[in-house]
């Protein structure tokens, strides 16, 4: 019978391998699956490619993963934030590569990957340095660049509530990249505050259907990045 709950974040991440591509949900701290990221650090997996909108702040969550030297490349739209010092150092020293992607193109590439679309054309970045060198084509007299779908070996996201089939609902703007990253991960792991019985979530309001979710970890009171940073926390 279907029950995607696992005992712990450690168990959910136990089979991750060096060199994996990992999508991480969140926009700033909203939706950032900090407990799953910390469990990823604990696995020791390294040489990771991280696909995420940002690169974290302070020395927790994504920034802690970066600081631990586990990330060889980030694919990201906005790696620079007010409290970020970790990524700039790694980037300047050449230890972490950056593929900078406009936010909407990043979102669409992730959705395409999850939807079986290998490539699509978009007007975004045409005539800019981020469009330079890309395959270009006109449709109806306007120029577009060709962009490719993105997939990941593992996706880590944070929801508010799930049923044991993996149907997930989110909290406000914490939804952001999570539903599309869930579609694009070979293995999608979601942390939620509460797991309920199938049927407890109205089928009309499910945001991420269970087919996109492989493992569910309960984190009853997830940490917020800003609170951790204010408290001077670091990880590990």
């Amino acid at each position, binding site marked *: 019978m279907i029950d995607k709950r696992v005992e712990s974040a450690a168990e959910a991440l136990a089979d991750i391998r060096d060199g994996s591509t990992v999508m991480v949900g969140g926009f700033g701290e909203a939706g950032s699956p900090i407990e799953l990221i910390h469990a990823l650090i604990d696995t020791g997996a390294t040489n990771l490619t991280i696909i995420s909108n940002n690169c974290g702040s302070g020395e927790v969550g994504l920034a802690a993963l970066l600081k631990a030297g586990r990330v060889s490349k980030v694919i990201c739209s906005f790696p620079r934030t007010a409290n970020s010092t970790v990524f700039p150092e790694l980037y300047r020293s050449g230890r972490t590569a950056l593929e900078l992607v406009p936010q909407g193109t990043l979102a669409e590439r992730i959705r395409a990957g999850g939807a079986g679309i290998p490539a699509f054309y978009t007007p975004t970045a045409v005539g800019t340095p981020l469009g330079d060198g890309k395959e270009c084509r006109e449709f109806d007299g306007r120029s577009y660049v060709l962009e490719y779908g993105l997939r990941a070996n593992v996706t880590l996201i944070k929801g508010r509530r799930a049923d044991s089939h993996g149907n997930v609902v989110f909290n406000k703007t914490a939804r952001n990249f999570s539903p599309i990253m869930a579609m694009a991960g070979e293995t999608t792991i979601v942390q939620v505050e509460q797991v309920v019985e199938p049927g407890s979530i109205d089928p009309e309001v499910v945001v991420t*259907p*269970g087919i996109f979710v492989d493992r569910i970890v309960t984190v009853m009171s997830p940490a917020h990045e800003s609170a951790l940073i204010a408290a001077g926390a670091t990880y590990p």
Partner: protein
Amino acid sequence: MSDAPSNVGWTREDMARRVAQDIPDGSYVNLGIGIPELVARFVPQGRELVYHTENGLLGMGPSPESDDGDPELINAGKRHVTANPGASFFHQSDSFAMIRGGHLDLCVLGALQVAQNGDLANWSTGEPDAIPAVGGAMDLVAGVKAIYVITQHTTKTGEPKLVESCTYPLTGARVVNRVYTDLAVIDVTPEGFRLVELNPGIDLDFVQNRTGAQLLPTPESTLST
């Protein structure tokens, strides 16, 4: 070639039950219109399957007892259905993202013809006055991880449906993994059709005579002893 005698071969229900035996617990499954719909009746004890209908429902349940179901809760065959606990509704683009993106484990489809290389024809006989209609079949065969076909071994007029190459317009090229007929279960392999299981009481020649391509025997290693 004539019809198989009516007392020979599996019934539609037998065929559907046989397919259901091969579906692992927890699978996400799309069932085509017709005989494939019957598969949902035979989920083996102890397994839970999630049925997808491409018009926008995951967790589809059986048709309602009475016929006064909600006319807006239907399956791809436009029949009234129900939604199981754990179901979700979504729009067409999300539904076909599930299909095209490789998220469904299995699709069970009917067929007009299956070729020995896995080509499937199931949407059109190509007759000039036919009204063409395709629905989601081409998306399903392009995207779902495994494609099973469930079909009578021959047409009503006794023509083989398993053939060397399809004469009807294709739904997809090299897409079928396995075929369940009233006479046999047959895998599509790189070498061609390979017998997996024969209906008891029917011999290989009987099936071969009703098949339009060579049937390779079951490898000895997989024969039950």
